[in-house]
Every structure is written in structure tokens, then in C-alpha cells.
């Protein structure tokens, strides 16, 4: 569920990125070593993902690309990439599910903040343990928790595992802003999905 409300004071949501902001952000993320090339067959070709907007998975009617101001602080929303030109939601595989969450930028580690846009972070919504949807934010523990087996991930710190059976971080996906809208700025930092034997 999303609602419109006044942006968080620290998120800078009203800022409009210059035209080359997206490219600069990708370069900055690559320099941090966070955007490993993936080449996943199930993940849409990177060229079509970079620049994609994000729409709610359960959106009724015409999909509406999300803005930071559509997100309430600490309330995760599950989204799919959305090609604005073709108006196609990239929901052909659940591995494309992304969880968006708006959190105070001041609470993010510098590496994590570099992945955010307008105070919004994006991570794979598929748990790296056994592939369940992971979309519940526990504010007290500052953790995104998986319903199935209680793996907890530190979204403010690159998705690292806090506790539980998951053995690898939740892959992040860098964001930028195109005007008011959230836009994917690069590839997942690791392969999304469970670590199947």
C-alpha cells in the first residue's frame, strides 16, 4: 500500500536529478565494487533494466511509476521493473520482485546510501535462503525479515544477514531519480534468488 505524504526531511525527495545523474550514479556504484555483472538468464537484459521505473506488483488499473513521496517511511512495497516506453511490467519471473523501502538516509552506511535515491532503497524481494518473499520490516530491529524461516537482513547496511539461516546478503539494486520518479540505475549486486544445491 502506498500513500502520498510529505517527504521525510532527510530524504531530499524534491530534488530533481540532472540529466546525467543516472550515469554518474552507475559509475559511482561501480567504483564502490557493488555492481557486479550478472548475466542471469532469468533477469531481464541489463540494458532493458537500467532506466526501468518501478510499479507495485498488485497495482490495479494502469501501473503508476513510483516516486519516493509515494512511500511511507519504514513501509516496504513490493514492485516490479516497468518499461515506461512499452508500458510493460517485467513480471515474467518472480526473481524480478524488488522490495522498496524508504528509510532515513542518515541511518544508512555510506555504501548503502550510494545505492539509494530520495531516501529509498531497493533490494531483491526473494530471500537468499529458500526463495520466499521477504517484505516485512521490523523497525525495532532495523531488519527486513523473511516470513518463512526468519532470516533477517540489514537494509541499512547493504542487505547483510543479521540472523537466521540465510548465508548471503539480500542483493541490492541501485536507484536514481528521473524527475520525481524512481529509476533502476544498475544491476543487482549479486544473483537474486535462493542458493539451491
Amino acid at each position, binding site marked *: 500500500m502506498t500513500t502520498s505524504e510529505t517527504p521525510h526531511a532527510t530524504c531530499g525527495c524534491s530534488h530533481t536529478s540532472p540529466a546525467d545523474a543516472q550515469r554518474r550514479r552507475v559509475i559511482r556504484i561501480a567504483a564502490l565494487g557493488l555492481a557486479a555483472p550478472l548475466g542471469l538468464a532469468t533477469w531481464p537484459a541489463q540494458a532493458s533494466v537500467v532506466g526501468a521505473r518501478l510499479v507495485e506488483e498488485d497495482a490495479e488499473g494502469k501501473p503508476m511509476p513510483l516516486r519516493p513521496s509515494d512511500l511511507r517511511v519504514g513501509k516496504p512495497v513490493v514492485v516490479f521493473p516497468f518499461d515506461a516506453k512499452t508500458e510493460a511490467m517485467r513480471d515474467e519471473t518472480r526473481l524480478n520482485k524488488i522490495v522498496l523501502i524508504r528509510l532515513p538516509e542518515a541511518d544508512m552506511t555510506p555504501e548503502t546510501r550510494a545505492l539509494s535515491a530520495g531516501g529509498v532503497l531497493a533490494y531483491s524481494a526473494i530471500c537468499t535462503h529458500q526463495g520466499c518473499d521477504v517484505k516485512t520490516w521490523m523497525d525495532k530491529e532495523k531488519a527486513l525479515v523473511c516470513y*518463512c524461516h526468519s532470516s533477517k537482513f540489514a537494509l541499512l547496511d547493504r542487505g547483510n544477514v543479521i540472523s537466521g539461516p540465510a548465508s548471503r546478503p539480500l542483493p541490492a539494486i541501485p536507484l536514481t531519480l528521473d524527475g520525481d520518479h524512481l529509476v533502476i540505475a544498475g544491476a543487482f549486486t549479486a544473483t537474486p534468488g535462493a542458493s539451491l544445491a
Partner: protein
Amino acid sequence: MIALRKPLATAALMACGLSTLMATAAPANYPPVTDARLSNPEPANWLQYRGNYAGWGYSALDKITNNNVGKLQLAWAYTTGQVDGHQAPPIVNNGYMYVTTPGAQVIALDAATGAELWRYKKELPAELMQLHPTNRGVALYGDKVYVATVDCNLVALDAKTGKVIWTKPVSDWKAIHYMTLAPLAAKGKIMVGSSGGETGVRGFVAAFDAETGAEAWRTYTVPAPNEPGGDTWPGDSYKNGGGSIWITGTYDPASNLAYWGTGNPSPWPTEGRKGDNLYTTSTIALDVDTGKIRGHHQYTPNDAWDWDEVSAPVLIDTEVKGRKMKAAVHAGRNGYLWMLERKDDKIDFVDAISYVNNNVFTAVDKTTGRPTYDESKRPGMGKGNVSFCPSLWGGKDWPPEAWNPNTGLFYVPANNNLCAEMPEPEPSKYKKGDLYIGYSIGAVLGSLRYQGGNDAKAPKTIGELQAWDLKTGKLAWVQKFPTFMWAPLLTTGGNLIFAGGTNDRMFRAFDASNGKILWEAPTPSGVTGVPTTFEVNGEQYVAVQSGWGVDAQRMGSGIDSLMGKTTPVPQGGTVMVYKLSK
């Protein structure tokens, strides 16, 4: 050394799974598993999930006894290389052992040495979501091994080589229908059912031809409106009504009826499904030839407490309340020990005894067994927080009980003194491929409460190994543990019970007559595996898988959270096989 297949054959196998063959010398002879053997299993082998069709979890082997079990030592161990819940029994036929792991891998081992003979790995979809990453074992029939997979396929393998004979889709894994049970093999059919009580499955039992894999019949545990029991569901609610099947049925060859336990109705909140919701939280008796439902007993009509009753009843011909009968006995998740009578065309209620604290039932009808509820204990909209006992995981979850014909005692691995507190449910709408529960994660995982409070007044024990005298309906003895107990049971002609289930990694032997702990040994992880026993070359072995996970882990996390502590239980599966020292 790996004996590689020819490239073409390997490529063909890759399409539906992979088996690797080892050059290790296999036990010489693989005797076919026949209906006669399954109906009257020889003690030297453990041919099926609970040792016999009746579900006793009993072996007549008596070389390891209550007098010498202290000399039990490790014969061999074998790491599976997998994590999560290793719950499958090591199933043995003339020196061939078969275990399964989470992810539905099948490993064939030399039962005397632990040498790997072959391993089958199901190629699982990358998108697969595993709510319950476990598998509870294989079925043996003829010269084949059958495994029900987490991506909802039934696979037949050659017992000696691991070669894939056929693979049949059973249901839609994209709807999060998944299988974790050991199949039931009888009269040329392989029977399975699907989990998915938290993902909106319409539960079913399906039978497949053992030779060809052709589907013979499919019976839904939730009837359609035009079927008997269909009027217990409003509107279209039956379509995603739950009643999942995730534990192997028991079977009476004389009546040709298979008895299955069914899961909770979906979603958990009851507002949208007024009525009894047949045949959820029930035992149903199915004709193995046709799949027709010939009888049922529902334990918790219109369940609101997630009290699945998935363990099939144990079939015992014994005296109950002064009368000899063909009984079906079940320690319910709802905290009552149910004694039923099997008849050709129905299941009659006989008696129900509370074996852990239940504060929801105010009465149980003496004729029908139908409980009356304290409705203030039913969670629901507009009711705020509601407390009830036992917890969501019940007095006993799936871990099977055991019956020992020598002691005449029925053993129950119970969890007592645990309750739950649930908030108001959330609106829930079925969506394929998503959870369909009706409560938030915080509500479920944070629901556990100690009976009486989690302070100094809290009970000092939770896990209980109970022994019940069915003739008198009395508790013969109980062994209590400070921790909870998630313990499938094995009992033997050596007057023993074997069990793990506690979060201290221990595997134990108990005196079957009085519950005294006679032997215990730590294992690499925690034990929630089903123990078995068998003989090779006249020597008796006891086998179990160590490998903590799934709901035992969830319950442990809940208790740790309640008590503000952390109890580490390492992950990883190991087949542990014991024998007496010389």
C-alpha cells in the same frame, strides 16, 4: 570414484534430474518390495516411513536392549552436504539404505558401511519458494524408489542404480503447492498429497500407477459444493480451503483403506469460511482402489488455531475402554489423545483425553467427539489480542508417535505448557504464488507464550515423552525436558524408545517401560529425523538423521525471543548409524 554415464544418457537425465553413480560395490541382492512384505515386514529391514503400514514406529529387533544400550556407539556417519530440516527415516532393504534431504535429494548408501551407492538431485526451479525445506523420505515398491519433491513432482528411480524411470507432475509449484511427505505404496499405487495450507492449496490425495506413473485417482480433502460436505464451505471458499496432506498415510490391507491426516483450513481467520470446513483438521479413510472417502473424523471443526492434524492415526487392534476394537489412535495438535474405531464404511469416535493443556475446548461430546469451544479463545476481527492453549504448533506437530505391542504403551512426543497470543487478523485475499494466512509475520513468530507467564512462575519444562496405556486411558509415565521436544519416535523389541528432538543436539535411548534415559549422544546438529533400526549380517543398527530446521527451528526462535536468549543449533545434515560396541 565416479562412474560417468555416456554423454547422451547424462544429457537426458539433466532434463529431469541427476543421479551420480558410484563405483562402490553395492550390497549383492535387492529383493523386490512386494505388498506381502510391506503388509508383514521382516524385522531385519525398515521398508517404509514408520516401519509398517499401521504406523507403529516399532521394530521387533531385540539385540539392542535396555540392558546393553549403554554400549551403543557410532558405526558410521555420512554428511549430506545439505542444510535445513533432515527429517527422513533411513529406509533399508537388504543392506541398501535410502535417505532423502531437503530439496528432495535421494541418497543410496551401503547400510553397513555408509558408502554412497548413488545420489539423485532433483533439478529445482530457480524461482521456487520453500516454506518448509525438508523431505520425509522415500517409498520402496517393486524394484523402484519413489520420492515426492518440493516442486511437486513424483519421481520413480531404479533402486539399484538411481536411474530416473519416470517423473510426473503432481500439482503446480508456482502456486506454492509442494510435497514433503514420504509416498505411501500399496496395491500397485503410489499415493501422495500436497502441502500448502499457508498458500491456499485445495488439499488432495492422488494415486499414481507404480509402474507407469499414470494418475489413477485424485481425491480432494475439501469437497466442492455438490459433494458430501460441500455445504460446510460458503461460496467459493473451498477452492483455496487448505486441508493439505503432508505426512504419509497409514494403511489397513484387510479393509483396503488408507488413513490420512489433513491440515488446517485456509486462511487461518474464520470470518470468511463459516461452517465446519470438512475435511480439514481430520482423519479421512480412502479406498485405495478408487480414492473414495469411506469415513472421516474431524478433530477441530472450523479451526482458527492452525491445528493441522496431519499425522495419520496409528492403527492398533487393541482394547480401549474395556472393548477390543480396530482402533485408530492420534495425538492431536489440539492437545487431545483421540481414540477412534475403524469400520469399513465409517470412523467412530471412542474417547478423547487431554494430554497437554487445552483451554479452548469446554467439552467433547461423548458420542460424536465434537468439541465445544470457549469462543473468547477464538482469534478474530474486532477481538483484540486473544490467548489460547496449546500454541499454534499444538501439543504435538508432525513428529510421529509410536506403539509398542510388548509394553502395550502408546508413546507421544508432546510439548506442554506452551500457549499463544494472536492479534486481530489482517484482511486476506488469495493470490496465486503468495502466502494466504491472514496474519502478519510478527503475529505468528511472536505468538508463543509460556503458560502462566515467562517469569519465575513459568513452568520449568516443555517437552514431554509420554507413555499412555490405551486400555485404561491413563498416563503410565512421563519424562520431562526443560526444552521443547520435536521428536519422531522409534520403539523396539529391546524395550527401548529412541528419540532426539531437543535443541541440545542429543539423540537418546529411553527404557520403554518407565521412560528412564539409558543412553544419549550429541550429534552434529539437532535431531528431528525419524529414527529407524535394521539388521545387516545379523547385526542390529539404529539410524537417524541429524539436521535441525523448519518448524523446530521456528519454535526455538520463538521461545528464545520470549526468554531473551539465543540457543545456537548448528545447521547441516548427517546420517548417524549406531551399533553396539564389541
